[in-house]
């Protein structure tokens, strides 16, 4: 049975009517899950959809229920979240857990290899990017669907929870000793940031390449919510500012706007202030988290039988680039 037949069987059973699956095709992106586009065709007509299925080996071990509920938390709230339709944690006919979203048409993500990904629309895209991030930070978490699956940390515990988790990933998945990231972890533990000014939904992978834009200056959908959680909203801001996403020598974040402009946009949209000491901590943490993800990626590549080249790219090229960023950052900070 092909995947299209399996999916059609699942949809027909759960919807209680015949549903055909047409134009099923795997698409690149979202390396932590297999992502497919397809059209669901029933008596009601044709619906463009996205299927996200757990792979046998994953870039990051994340909770698809949390991802699903995070997306659902922001439907219709001006943050460009796609529509979350179906969550199947047992896998059903597809054998592995999956969820289904409505497909947003008319846009594409920026290529990580593009020299000037947004061209003349860079400032418009940057304004929307940091405004959406700010609006997510501003949203009160009480009553959001994500609370069904996410723990709410105390404001002074956000940093420790994230650092414990991601340093644990390195402990578990490291193939070769990494003295640079170990030094950064020690530094972060020795000088915690101030408590979070509020507990907010953190997207967890808010960066260039994780949203669809129409090529004419409009962001259509924010993607890849698989690392969403509740925590300090500065975590998203710092992650987007990691030098990994920007070209060396370009003062703009991911070819969009400068850091000063980004902070001003974020402050306006979130209504929150940015404590420079806190942001500095979260920026070093962002590189540690990145290195943990790339470390995990290399392990997933090996454990998955060395079949997915994107996992190796992350676990090799990107890991080394992240090591350079971390080493420069630590050198600038100097001895403790």
């Amino acid at each position, binding site marked *: 049975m092909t995947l299209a037949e399996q999916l059609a069987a699942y949809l027909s059973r759960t919807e209680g009517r015949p549903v055909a699956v047409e134009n099923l*095709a795997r698409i690149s992106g979202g390396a932590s899950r297999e992502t497919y586009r397809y059209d669901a065709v029933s008596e009601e007509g044709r619906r463009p959809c996205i299927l996200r299925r757990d792979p046998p080996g994953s870039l990051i071990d994340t909770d698809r229920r949390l991802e699903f509920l995070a997306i659902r938390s922001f439907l219709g709230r001006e943050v460009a979240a796609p529509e979350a339709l179906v969550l199947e944690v047992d896998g059903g006919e597809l054998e592995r857990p999956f969820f289904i979203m409505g497909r947003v048409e008319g846009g594409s993500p920026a290529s990580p*290899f593009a020299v000037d990904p947004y061209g003349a629309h860079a400032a418009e895209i940057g304004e929307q990017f940091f405004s959406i991030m700010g609006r997510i930070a501003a949203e009160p978490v009480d009553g959001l669907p994500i609370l069904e699956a996410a723990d709410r940390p105390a404001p002074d515990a956000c940093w420790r929870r994230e650092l414990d988790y991601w340093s644990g990933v390195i402990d578990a998945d490291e193939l070769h000793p*990494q003295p640079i990231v170990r030094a950064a972890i*020690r530094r972060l533990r020795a000088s915690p940031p101030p408590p979070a000014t509020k507990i907010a939904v953190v997207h967890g992978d808010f960066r260039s390449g994780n949203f669809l834009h129409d090529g004419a200056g409009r962001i259509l959908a924010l993607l890849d919510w698989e690392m969403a959680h509740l925590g300090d909203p500065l975590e998203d801001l710092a992650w987007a500012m990691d030098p990994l996403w920007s070209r*060396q020598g370009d003062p703009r974040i991911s070819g969009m706007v400068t850091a000063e402009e980004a902070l001003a946009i974020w402050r306006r949209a979130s209504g929150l202030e940015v404590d420079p000491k806190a942001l500095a901590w979260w920026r070093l943490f962002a590189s540690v988290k990145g290195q943990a993800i790339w470390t995990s990626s290399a392990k997933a590549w090996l454990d998955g039988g060395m079949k997915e080249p994107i996992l190796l790219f992350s676990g090799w090229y990107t890991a080394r680039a992240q090591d350079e960023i971390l*080493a420069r950052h630590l050198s600038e900070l100097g001895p403790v």
Partner: protein
Amino acid sequence: MTPSLPTILMGQVVSLNTPAPPEASGDYAVSRAGMVGMLLMLASQEVERGPAAQAWENRTLRALFAETAGAYDEALGGALSAASGVSEGDGGWSAVDAANADLRRRLTALHEAAEVRRDTGLQRRILDLYVEMAKARRLDLPGAG
């Protein structure tokens, strides 16, 4: 550090010989083949620069440990002194990589000890060394950076 070159090259053979299901053909297959090509291009850089980078790193770490061993307590000092005896076996990629893993673990121990002692001079040296180590392992993508 990342997967070693022999493993990386073997992985590309596996990638190219893994049959794709019908839903993973078309654009996805083209993109995947492009990624394999990019990895092979990076592998060519690793063949060219990797052995020299590894040899330099191992040599530099041994020299640092020989110089600093006497300044630390018996346990750490002994471990640093013993680093000169870390074998690189037959000099092949895997043996040198294993020696490098051993030396890197000792470097982390030395850095931790320097932090505890507030030995800012040694910390500065190690931080500068990190920059050089990361730079020596850099891989270049055409058009990036």
